């Protein structure tokens, strides 16, 4: 079928860098990067039994979501698509020390590596908010004892663009940590640990200690 209408020029000329996980392209997505309507992140990590081994952060356990019935553990399983629905607070202990609330759905898929001894491909997809809309994402902190909300800041991703979101996270964590009263639960009085961002290079001593703790 269609053999008579195939193009006779090189496929690369029309498709460009068509495979996001080839050896060259995958490095460009090691953080998050726009790919058309989507934001894509691809990490090469060893994965075993739902635990991801990060070369810098060490063993990262399963993600946690805060749903209507409380905390839910969301394990990554190879070749299974997992979704965090838009609006659901979620975090990965020891990876980022705040609750991320994205208006957009986040989808997670782990593809096996070429061999059992080589890292898997941990993919994260989410649609970039429609620039004509109002969607965004928030940083929040909840009391670790009673889940009362302590702090929340919102970023207008649709309007401001995804590129500014990491600075927003940095600023929000600095703001949260700089005011000790933010960490004291108004309901139960528990003093919560410091928050921290994704990037351990920017940890203060307090943030590095908190990363070990929660």
């Amino acid at each position, binding site marked *: *079928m*269609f053999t*008579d*209408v*195939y*193009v*006779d*020029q090189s*496929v690369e000329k*029309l*498709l460009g860098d*068509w*495979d*996001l*996980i*080839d050896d060259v392209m995958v490095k460009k997505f090691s953080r998050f990067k726009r*790919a*058309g*309507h*989507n934001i*894509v992140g*691809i990490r090469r990590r060893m994965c075993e039994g739902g635990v991801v081994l990060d070369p810098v952060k060490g063993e990262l356990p399963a993600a946690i979501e805060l749903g209507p019935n409380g905390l839910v553990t*969301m*394990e990554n*399983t190879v*070749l*299974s*698509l*997992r*979704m965090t*629905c*838009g609006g659901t607070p979620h975090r990965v202990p020891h990876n980022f020390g705040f609750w991320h609330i994205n208006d*957009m*759905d986040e*989808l997670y*898929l782990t*593809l*096996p590596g*070429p061999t059992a001894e080589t890292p898997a*491909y941990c*993919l994260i*997809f989410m*649609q970039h*908010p*429609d620039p*004509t*809309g109002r*969607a965004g994402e928030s940083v929040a902190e909840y009391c670790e004892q009673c889940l009362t909300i302590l702090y929340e800041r919102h970023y207008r991703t649709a309007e401001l663009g995804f590129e500014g979101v990491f600075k927003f996270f940095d600023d929000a964590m600095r703001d949260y940590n700089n005011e000790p009263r933010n960490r004291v639960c108004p309901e139960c009085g528990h003093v919560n640990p410091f928050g921290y961002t994704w990037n351990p290079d920017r940890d203060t001593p307090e943030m590095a200690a908190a990363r070990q703790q929660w």
Partner: protein
Amino acid sequence: MPVLDDGAPMAEAGPNGQWKKAGENYVWSRCVPPGGPELDLFERFDEGVVRVPVVERAVHVIPTGRPYRLAHVYGFWRMTGADTMYVRSPAPGGAAYMLLTGTSYDTYTEDRVFWACPKCGRELSGVAIPKRMGLGGLLAQTAKAVRVFNADAAARTCPGCGTLHPPAYAMEPEADDEIEAAGRLAW
């Protein structure tokens, strides 16, 4: 298995594949056992049709507005107002495939399902399916359009070069009639 609310692992998606609506996304996945057909991805440009290279594992973005089809899965060209992610991976049960289309963009107002002459590329027939009909509407309306196309030899005959288009098939193999099943095997 904590997947898409009620379980849809790629490797267990089965030989017929499965469609799901997950949040604001349409997701299709299928696992083809060893020795099964390669589900070639084709994309349609002004210059002609491109067969996306087959590699063991790939993640590829089919951009908004570019017609595409997966052999043995889509017996038609589909054009969507949103990007679609295509994933292929080795899996314990063979090769796993996934298509993932986010539906939240305002640019996504409809799907266009159409047929083009396999010899000269001329467009033959097609329908537009509004996004508001949802995934169920997309599946049903595509199946309806396929039946209409297959039943109309004139619509399947290229007015330019006279080539007869082979029978089309829709998105759910379990609903194929004999003609559609034969088309699905063939192309």
